[in-house]
């Protein structure tokens, strides 16, 4: 079965100025990512700052073209899909509820904007659909003519969700949709996203740095580090048997509200990688507790087996 959304050796580099007299340097934001998401799945992408997940999100939305490799929507290269057709199939929900809504538009005009662009129905039909969608996400109709400035963070995020779903897309790319929200609001939004997924048969790509949230919502998880996917497997499997040392460290640093467990020491050391000057070989090796001599020399190949994908010298690919 063709994956609904797929990436093949996806890469994106940026030229960054390093100072007044230094030549521009290359930043490999996304450095060879292969992903495959089946219909109705939820792919969770986790990683810390600098891992490239936001750049990846933008490429999945078609907002940033890849430097190399490709993004395929239902087998079709994204660069060959007409902008409007793409809009009908893939929609975003962004992180910052304060910058994802145009402060000068009314709520109903924000939500009906995708319909306006695609020219669906008459003006009053579009407004009606927008209000229906707002109701579905839990915002009563009386908010329709307010401006975003009058809404709270959680309410704004609901508006963003309504906007994303109003044209019935197949795929929703969620870039840290709950990270800027209070815990109680986060729970509401997560419940809403799960309900909507069932109701509208949606496929999510859910990017987050919060592992507990990803465990709750994703069916499979990809762990990213400095532009590469270091591990990819089913959610339950990842949390029970993490293979890559970075995944293990990441899981260990999740502080669950369970007193008495203290704070673990993952032994990661102080060095934080500079994306402009990544370490040689495996980019995680300076911080890895289980490193071997070959880790600083050679970049590990991706092993794909029944358990999932992992790129680590501890799991060598068969020659």
């Amino acid at each position, binding site marked *: 079965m063709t994956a609904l959304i797929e990436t093949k050796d996806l890469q994106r580099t940026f030229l960054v100025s390093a100072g007044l007299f230094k030549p521009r340097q290359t930043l490999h934001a996304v450095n060879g990512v292969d992903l495959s998401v089946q219909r109705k799945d939820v792919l969770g992408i986790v990683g810390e700052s600098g891992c490239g997940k936001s750049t990846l999100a933008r490429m999945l939305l078609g*907002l940033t073209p890849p430097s190399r490799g490709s993004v395929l929507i239902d087998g079709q290269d994204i660069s060959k899909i007409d902008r409007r057709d793409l809009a009908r199939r893939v929609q975003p929900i962004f992180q910052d509820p304060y910058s994802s809504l145009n402060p000068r538009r009314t709520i109903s005009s924000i939500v009906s904007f*995708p319909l306006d662009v695609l020219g669906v129905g008459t003006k009053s039909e579009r407004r009606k659909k927008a209000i229906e969608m707002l109701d579905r996400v839990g915002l009563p109709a009386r908010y329709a003519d307010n401006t975003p*400035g009058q809404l709270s963070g959680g309410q704004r995020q609901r508006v963003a969700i309504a906007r994303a779903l109003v044209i019935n897309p197949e795929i929703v790319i969620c870039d840290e949709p709950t990270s800027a929200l209070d815990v109680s609001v986060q729970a509401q939004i997560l419940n809403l996203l799960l309900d909507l997924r069932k109701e509208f048969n949606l496929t999510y790509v859910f990017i987050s740095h919060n592992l507990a949230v990803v465990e709750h919502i994703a069916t499979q998880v990809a762990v990213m580090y400095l532009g590469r996917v270091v591990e990819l497997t089913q959610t339950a499997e990842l949390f029970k048997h993490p293979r890559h040392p970075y995944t293990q460290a990441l899981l260990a640093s999740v502080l669950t509200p369970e007193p008495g467990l203290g704070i673990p020491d993952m032994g990661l050391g102080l060095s934080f990688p500079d994306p402009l000057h990544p370490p040689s070989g495996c980019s995680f090796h300076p911080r890895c507790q289980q490193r071997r001599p070959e880790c600083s020399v050679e970049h590990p190949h991706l092993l794909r087996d029944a358990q999932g994908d992992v790129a680590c010298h501890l799991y060598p690919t068969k020659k």
Partner: protein
Amino acid sequence: MKKNTALYVGCGLLLFIVFCAIFAPLISPHDPYVQDLTNRTVPPFWYEKGSWVHPLGTDQLGRDYLSRLIYGARISLLIGLSVAVISGLIGTTMGMLAGYFGGRIDMIVSFMVTTRLSLPVILVALATVALVGGSLWVVIMVLGLLKWDRFAVVMRSATQQVRSMEYVSAAQSAGASTLRIMLTEVLPNVLPHLIVIATLEAASAILLEAALSFLGLGVQPPLPSWGLMISEAKSYMFFSFWLIAIPGTALALLIFSINLAGDGLHQLLTPGERA
């Protein structure tokens, strides 16, 4: 809600001046061009020798000063408005394109701005007048084609800020064309900056015209430009002080009201920020 006094006072004063300018033929007591050499430099009504026939007196050629003042408002306002519009269109387009697209377009625009900044406005006006002769339209064209630099710079940075907002990315994801995004998402959000710069540039253009006319490079007599009136009154400075004071005060009031109105409009247009 904090009262927007700037808006009320500024707009009120400005509207009053605009009103006077529009209805100049109806409210001027006399024709501003008619000379009466028997009644030269008659002082305004609050002096002993003045009267209500010529409420603000007459100038050195016997022309009614109040009428000239009122008609002069037309010239200043026309200059301010047309220069703001011409330079605003040029500068805003350049700035928004540079801010939105970045890269090569940004480099080209920045180069053009730098080049423009190296040209002194007065000297260019001088050269143009020497070539073409001075007139109201020459002044408008010269100033309009030169004063777009601040628009370009400010609109560029304002556009860059808006460009980085997620609602622009959302609009792109909705399939909107670049033009649509620029007009419906970017422009309304950079409008406050545009208003402020437009008022500053309008005020500055008015002052520049006055300066050019004062130097004889702008509007030519007998047009009642306030700058020209001040220039013509130079030699009478110590005897008939009002000949300079009156147009000078009018100029100051106009600039003041424009700036105040611009302030007030900016306050009005900036939406409530999040707590």
